[in-house]
């Protein structure tokens, strides 16, 4: 797969991953651009026997995101508290609550959850992207979901009550 085909196929998913990690569209755009430029400039670095183009691109995006947040010291878990006056019944409030809850996860759990739940990667692909074994990423996913289950409990009950 040449870089243009890879871009057409995966740039949306890479951008979405970067956005959900960074929570800022401008940072996500920079990370996505850098990710594909790295592939365009040195396509020979991709070795087919090590994995798919998809996992390779997500690995680059993940490393760029980690570097970005190391430089800007912004990957620390955020407070998952609701802002004062938030109305959990409104859909926009639910969306914001989910965003805050995910942002409140520890970095390794956060990236695992975002990649698995939103980017559609398999457990094996996730393990290859983050450079861990499948058992480790399963454990991270489980802990992330447990945290989210508690943090988002009020929204689930309200959502059910209102259909």
């Amino acid at each position: 797969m040449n870089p243009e085909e890879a871009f057409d196929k995966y740039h949306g998913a890479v951008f979405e991953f970067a956005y959900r990690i960074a929570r800022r569209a401008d940072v996500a755009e920079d990370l996505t651009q850098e990710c594909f430029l790295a592939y365009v400039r040195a396509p020979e670095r991709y070795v087919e026997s090590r994995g798919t183009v998809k996992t390779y691109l997500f690995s680059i995006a993940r490393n760029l995101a980690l570097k970005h947040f190391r430089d800007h010291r912004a990957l620390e878990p955020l407070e998952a508290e609701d802002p004062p006056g938030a109305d959990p019944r409104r859909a926009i409030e639910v969306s914001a609550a989910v965003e805050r809850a995910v942002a409140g996860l520890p970095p390794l759990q956060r990236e695992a959850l975002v990649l698995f739940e939103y980017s559609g990667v398999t457990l094996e692909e996730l393990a290859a992207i983050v450079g861990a074994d499948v058992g480790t990423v399963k454990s991270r996913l489980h802990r992330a979901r447990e945290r989210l289950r508690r943090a988002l409990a009020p929204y689930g009950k309200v959502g059910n009550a209102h259909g």
Partner: protein
Amino acid sequence: MDENDELSDRELDRLLRQWSAPAPPERLRAAVFPEGRRGWWGRFWSGSVRVPLPAACAAALLLGLAAWRSMAPPARVVVVRTVAAEVPRFQPVLELRPRIVKAEDAAN
């Protein structure tokens, strides 16, 4: 909050789906694949040529002159017709016989 208040897997999945992300901007492609990376036809249709200002001025002047000349009225063509003179019983001199005449004879 007791354990019964926690979300089921299905409820959690439903909530997670409510967080949407924006679409990637269109300009991303141009940022990753600038003009130089386009194909031959792409460069042909969107390419540009830099011309030095004096050369551009000279070309514009020549074009202007050519346009002016093409718009000017065509030069008048004068057709001169020659008519052959016809003199009846005219015969050209076949042999010249010069004759020297004396002055006193000339006076006569």
